[in-house]
């Protein structure tokens, strides 16, 4: 079940319009099967805008969620209207447009909608700390230790040049760290994303300015939603 959404029927319905099932995508995002020919709706944040303070300010979230994420949703709706993509589940739009230069705009907006939703759920107030035992075992099997995993994830996040994302993913039977530029996500590479850190400058500039490493370290230590990662592990 999607975190922060339990028992809210209207939100679930709206979310079902937005979040569609697709084979191989993160299980936690799969809450419906198809979308009617109605616009995508910006999914609600799984917590209050100020819930991640002091690591991420309410001010940052209000712009990041209320402006950036919303604009990607609005742009996608404009671009998809009247096209074959209008009725397509989000993951399918991403899969259908990835790597096609003439579809770059629709891919960018669709992938950014998906990435941001995934990012909000990759964090929670009071997160960080030790992963649940089942996940911890898998992490230790792949990285040696939770610290080594976090270190690799932080290094990927800090070294992603320009805008992009750092991800913990399941590829085959191993967990690994990948980074992607701009809107790219690992969905199209056949791996299962577990958690992500947004390293577009808009994710941290109001709170950390140029100090991306501080932002990344604080997210990993204090906000990372390991339970979400475990659910995505399946």
């Amino acid at each position: 079940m999607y975190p922060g959404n339990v028992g809210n029927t209207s939100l679930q319905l709206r979310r079902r319009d937005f979040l569609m099932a697709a084979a191989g995508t993160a299980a936690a995002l799969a809450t419906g099967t198809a979308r009617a020919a109605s616009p995508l709706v910006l999914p609600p944040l799984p917590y209050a805008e100020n819930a991640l303070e002091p690591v991420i300010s309410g001010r940052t979230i209000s712009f990041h969620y209320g402006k950036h994420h919303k604009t990607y949703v609005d742009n996608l709706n404009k671009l998809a209207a009247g096209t074959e993509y209008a009725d397509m589940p989000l993951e399918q739009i991403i899969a259908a447009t990835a790597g096609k230069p003439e579809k770059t705009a629709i891919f960018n907006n669709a992938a950014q909608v998906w990435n941001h939703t995934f990012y909000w759920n990759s964090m929670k107030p009071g997160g960080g700390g030790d992963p649940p035992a089942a996940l911890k075992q898998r992490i230790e099997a792949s990285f040696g230790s939770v610290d080594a995993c976090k270190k690799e994830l932080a290094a990927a996040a800090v070294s992603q040049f320009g805008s992009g994302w750092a991800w913990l993913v399941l590829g085959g039977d191993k967990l690994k760290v990948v980074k992607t530029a701009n809107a790219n996500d690992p969905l199209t590479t056949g791996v299962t994303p577990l958690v992500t850190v947004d390293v577009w400058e808009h994710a941290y500039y109001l709170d950390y300015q140029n100090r991306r490493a501080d932002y990344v370290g604080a997210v990993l230590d204090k906000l990372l939603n390991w339970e979400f990662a475990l659910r995505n592990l399946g």
Partner: protein
Amino acid sequence: MSDARKARFGTGRMVSIMVRIWTPVLVGLGHRPNAVAEPFCMVYASRWFVPASSRDERRRRAIGAGLSPITTFLKGTNAMRHELSALPYAHTALEPHISAETLEYHHGKHHAKYVANLNDLIPRTRFENMPLEEIVREADGAIFNNAAQAWNHAFYWHCLSPDGGGEPDETLTAEINKHFGSLAGFRQKFTDLATTLFGSGWTWLIRNPDGSLAIENFGNAGTPLREKDRGPLLTCDVWEHAYYIDYRNARPKYVEAFWNLVNWDFVAEQYQARTHASGGI
């Protein structure tokens, strides 16, 4: 200054001396009266680096050019040390369009960090004694990223001026009209590209080797300097760090404000220098 010295030199004379010493430092060599117009990159190759073989000679040249002795070497190596060039104006000079806070981070942290990273990366590589532009043209990966960002930012600072805005001189206006129909058409096309560049990067006005003008987006550290015989004339930095403090997500507002700051004199100098370098073509 003591009264005696004031009497000897006169305030006007002292001001004139100070202006003569500091003008090249503050406004860039491209603005010296009677200076031969050179593309920005060449000017900066002689300002930032240490081109001669002997360290003393390199230092003398830098000082002789009216600059602080900026030519130093990385400790324990023979590698040149690239220096962060000064902003050509005060941090507050571009307000209200770009705030002092933005410039303090953008120049003092981001630009400075690219230069520092470059200095960390080049010792014991073939780039360690190479002028910045050559590194930009030849390197890949992290060295390219940091070198190109060091160069792009210096170029960007010079594209802006507290006395900027308005319209270019007649020659450049005629060229712009020829290639884009009108100044308004040019501005619209540049604005459209700058506001739609996805992710981080730079929008450039470029003079092509055949004399034509082009507007193109380059992602991340991308720069036309890397492309043979293409002359960068004007750039707008659309990395979010260039405008997030002042405009948040509203990049179009930043680009609109950018037009109030464009240093058309600098753009025209670049155009002339590139035209001259290509034999008038």
